[in-house]
């Protein structure tokens, strides 16, 4: 984590953009950093959370030198309130694959992004398969962090239950998704962000994550030759472990690359920002064609010059 002095103002701007999703106006909050004409890098948060997970990518001077980094809140998340034209309060919030993918593409369209690189984690990683299947011509590359063809077991009633403190439980059911050696302040902040989700939204996102998303028999439909796919899964991610990432890349075939990231878990960008940003720069270099060697099967702290005490 970077250190700051009194009065420092971060070079991150927050704004709202109106996005038409299936004929309904959504007021979407996004933050961006980097030059206006930089190469767009569009960032999707995890289930039940918000764009604050990406603050360390937005604040990385090396990344924002070349990239216009944009992190948004999905509808119902963070500062993107539910649509004012809809009666949303008399039904459970439920995210489907179609709605999720359409929303991401609509946000890219509304911001007039040309050939953006898309990156998301967890449900934001899984959706790279739908994006690569349905919208391969819309993105320059897809980076799926913690991606699996199918990730069952997390659509759990206790995560939205009147007899449970869901504010705490939605966060701490995720505690073990992080590597214990990731810095404690960053892991505690990750849980703090999780405690900010609205009632039922985490579970509703997990309908997509654990039920609706199932590409086990459809991986060959993902067009990674038109749109390169990077499947980047952390060593400590017990849900979508690195072996699952390799299975995804193998199933997709040409254009798909699997990378295991050592000593990190399911929330890499927020649980260990220093290590993740170093890993990310290697992946971005590969997209740009700036690497002499292919990405290794396993990226470690040693590879990227970050000391990871074990």
């Amino acid at each position: 984590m970077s250190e700051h002095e009194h009065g420092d103002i971060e070079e991150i701007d927050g704004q709202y953009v109106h996005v038409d999703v299936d004929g309904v106006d959504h007021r979407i909050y996004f933050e961006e950093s980097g030059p206006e004409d930089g190469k767009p890098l569009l960032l999707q948060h995890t289930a039940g959370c918000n764009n604050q997970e990406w603050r360390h990518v937005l604040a990385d001077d090396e990344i924002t030198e070349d990239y216009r980094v944009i992190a948004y809140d999905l509808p119902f998340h963070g500062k993107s309130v539910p649509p004012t034209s809809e009666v949303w309060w008399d039904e459970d919030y439920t995210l489907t694959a179609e709605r999720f993918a359409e929303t991401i593409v609509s946000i890219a369209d509304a911001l007039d992004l040309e050939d953006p690189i898309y990156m998301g984690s967890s449900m934001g990683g899984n959706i790279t398969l739908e994006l690569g299947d349905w919208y391969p011509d819309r993105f320059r590359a897809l980076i799926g962090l913690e991606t699996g063809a199918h990730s069952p077991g997390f659509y759990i009633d206790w995560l939205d239950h009147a007899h449970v403190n869901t504010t705490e439980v939605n966060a701490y059911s995720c505690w073990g998704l992080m590597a214990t050696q990731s810095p404690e302040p960053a892991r505690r902040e990750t849980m703090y962000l999780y405690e900010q989700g609205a009632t039922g939204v985490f579970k509703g996102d997990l309908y997509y994550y654990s039920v609706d998303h199932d590409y086990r028999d459809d991986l060959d439909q993902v067009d990674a030759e038109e749109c390169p796919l990077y499947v980047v899964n952390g060593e400590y991610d017990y849900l979508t472990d690195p072996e699952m990432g390799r299975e995804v890349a193998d199933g997709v075939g040409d254009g798909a690359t699997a990378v295991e990231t050592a000593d990190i878990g399911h929330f890499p960008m927020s649980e260990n920002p220093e290590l993740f940003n170093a890993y990310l720069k290697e992946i971005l270099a590969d997209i740009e064609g700036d690497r002499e060697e292919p990405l290794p099967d396993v990226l470690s702290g040693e590879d990227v010059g970050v000391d990871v005490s074990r």
Partner: protein
Amino acid sequence: MTEAELASNDWWEEYKAVVNQDDEMHVRGHDTFDENFYVEIGDERFLIEMDEGTVDEIVSDPGMNHAWSFGVEGDREAWEEFVQEVPPAFNHEVIASHYRTAVKDDPGHLQLTGNNKKIFQNLRAFQRALDLMRTTHNDGVNSDE
């Protein structure tokens, strides 16, 4: 590393002191964590009797006269991994371990048992109580902190 063997009498005495002096347990336990739980290490079962977020008593081999709401079971190797200062992936936290067992059918990990509603009603305090086994085992040093 503590010289006491995992789950020996001296180890559990130290564990009780660690839990009862833990500031986070006091905050997250909200003085209301009263659900007894057991820890099963191989063939040995230990009942942790809780009283308002503190450990009241630890009972070896509990029987019909005792009551509990939930527990965690695993072979000794899995628990030895769990209490390491930097545990290996998938035995580093109880929900992680349980997922590998229950959903992935991946042997060698800890498994939750008992009343799921009470587990989720007390998740953070229960989770903290288990994490403090790692603190106990490493003389107060815990990669989780």
